[in-house]
């Protein structure tokens, strides 16, 4: 039997299977990322409340761990079995738009609805003048420091520049702790390097669209981190520490300073409420430049959804002030809703204030195809440098690779 016949036969079999699966009218399927242990229970609650308020519509949430979300979406879309709505990293959105799987939401969005959002967080989801996603989660990064270690080392206030940070790290090291927690493994290894790079006035992409990794500023930043590793100012074994590992060291009081997201405050409150810590701005470079990483995750509607109106109703519900507040506060994100941001919870919270103060300096991941590949190239280059490689050669090589991706 020829392969072609096999294919036909199997296709017939598959389509019968596909027909057998009922497409429920009024059912909205949503793929959501599992941010923490609270994500699942929150969406269970949403299902109950929403279904009670909207008889005839049933909602099905598929809670997927972050690490495998993109993999699941890729396979689902390839097979045509994707949900109606899904949370995605906003940095992936360009792929979804280019492949024409995301539905523009402009026909549903009323000026009133749009007015609910803080513009900084909505704008990354807008492409070619169309809104393809709504920011369901927003976050930024700031520097956490251990007040007790600072006191012991005789440091009065958190460092304002990287030079001060190095000095403080030396003092903390003299106390037997690790000065600066440096992440060197897994997701956001590249971002941890950008904090130093941005403070040199270097951007991820130069003005002419080439990679910033080949610039003198990028080299300075890499040398800074490498010198800190060589001097023993960071925790040992940088390349075996992912974000959670460094956070754990911070919670154990072993690390003086680290840069991470607001959710660490929530974790500290639950796990080590006695830890005395503060949140401060990310240190600036010699010219006063500084940058933090802004991230949003968007919820998008798929073009092939059969229940778009019902799906929109759910979105409308999810983005009311009450729902937003419950979700954002549970997960430790930043408010994306203007009314929500005015709530006492946010206004009187010193930690969050430090994060929102940094928002003017926030950089979002550049909206270019192949971004994930460039991030991977950068992470790999940094790991080589952290392990003792030559910064100049490593960055030159990485810049060449990144430029090759950018040219495509």
């Amino acid at each position, binding site marked *: 039997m020829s392969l072609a016949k096999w294919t036909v036969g199997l296709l017939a079999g598959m389509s019968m299977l596909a027909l057998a699966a009922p497409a429920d009218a009024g059912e909205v399927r949503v793929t959501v990322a599992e941010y923490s242990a609270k994500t699942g229970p929150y969406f269970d609650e949403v299902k109950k409340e929403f279904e009670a308020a909207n008889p005839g519509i049933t909602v099905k949430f598929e809670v997927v761990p972050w690490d495998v979300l993109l993999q699941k979406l890729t396979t689902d879309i390839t097979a045509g079995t994707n949900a109606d709505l899904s949370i995605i990293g906003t940095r992936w959105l360009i792929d979804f738009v280019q492949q024409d799987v995301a539905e523009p939401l402009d026909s549903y969005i009323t000026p009133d609805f749009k007015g609910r959002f803080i513009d900084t967080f909505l704008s990354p989801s807008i492409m070619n003048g169309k809104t393809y996603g709504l920011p369901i989660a927003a976050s930024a990064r700031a520097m956490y420091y251990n007040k007790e270690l600072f006191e012991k080392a005789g440091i009065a206030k958190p460092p304002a520049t990287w030079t001060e940070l190095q000095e403080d790290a030396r003092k903390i090291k003299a106390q037997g702790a690790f000065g600066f927690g440096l992440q060197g493994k897994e997701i956001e290894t590249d971002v941890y390097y950008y904090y130093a790079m941005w403070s040199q006035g270097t951007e991820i992409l130069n003005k002419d669209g080439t990679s910033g990794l080949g610039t003198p500023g990028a080299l300075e930043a890499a040398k800074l981190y490498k010198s800190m590793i060589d001097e023993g100012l960071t925790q040992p074994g940088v390349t*075996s520490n992912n974000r959670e590992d460094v956070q754990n060291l911070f919670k154990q009081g072993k690390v003086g300073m680290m840069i991470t997201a607001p959710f660490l405050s929530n974790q500290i409150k639950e796990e080590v409420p006695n830890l005395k810590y503060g949140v401060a701005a990310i240190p600036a470079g010699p010219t006063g430049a500084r940058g933090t990483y802004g991230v949003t995750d968007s919820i998008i509607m798929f073009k092939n959804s059969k229940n778009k109106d019902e799906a929109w109703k759910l979105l409308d519900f999810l983005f009311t002030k009450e729902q937003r507040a419950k979700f954002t506060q549970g997960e430790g994100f930043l408010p994306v809703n203007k009314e929500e941001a005015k709530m006492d919870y946010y206004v009187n919270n010193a930690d969050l204030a430090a994060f929102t103060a940094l928002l003017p300096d926030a950089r979002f991941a550049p909206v270019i195809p192949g971004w994930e590949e460039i991030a991977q190239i950068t992470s790999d280059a940094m790991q080589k440098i952290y392990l003792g490689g030559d910064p100049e050669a490593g960055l030159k090589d990485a810049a060449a690779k990144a430029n090759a991706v950018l040219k495509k």
Partner: protein
Amino acid sequence: MQNRLLPYLLTLPSLFLAAVVIFWPVWDLLQISTHDVSRFGQLRDFTGLANFWTLLDDPDFIAALWRTVLWTVLVVGGALLVSIPVAMILNMDFYGRGLARVIIMLPWAVSLTMTAVVWRWALNGESGMLNSALMKLGLISQNIQWLASAATAFPMQVLIGILVTVPFTTTIFLGGLSSIPDDLYEAAALEGATPLQQFREITFPLLKPFINIAIVLNTIYVFNSFPIIWVMTQGGPANSTDILVTHLYKLAFRIGKLGEASAVSVVMFVILLVFTMIYVRLAMREQRA
């Protein structure tokens, strides 16, 4: 005539199942690997072998290929070396044999991913169990950062690979050993054969078919084994512990190059197919001779 047709008829259902489960994905894979593919698997232009040539130009792929060979040889070889004596001991009659067997088999009952997760904790540089145990024993004076570089991470991954491969291999050998009749040993002992001679002249030759099976099956499993390396280092730092499967996963699901990832998959499939065919041929010829 009817009798000749019968075997084919009887194998037809399982052949059909195999077709759906095996041939269909392989066919799909060939399609994707020879086309320009979108991030979500939609086929665009036919590009022939372009994806394969890109792989050959990629030093990371070549490095991962050699590391996969090393990984497979070390894990499969190590598991064999450990399993033969273990199986022989477990085959002896001694008090507590049941318990010993359970302990050896236990790693098999735990999912590979969980084993890898536990080891990742145990190998943590600052709060890992292994470092604190070595420290207490006075073997090291400073924490070892096991997973920080390939020089320590990869050997540990190989050791864990061996650990989880031993139960299955031991099971095969136990089956083999129990099929060797005791009177052979009795006769040999009467003739004055030493235990070493008994092993070389009786146990090993009779165990050979089982060793062959263990080599083929383990090679296929280990060559494709994903969780240990992925969970512990994700192939890092800087791709220095990548094997083909982890390289493939990153290509496909991190970077979205489904075409190249499928090409890696096809290469892996071909390597395993060729290995199995050559090995089975050699093993069978040996047995006939």
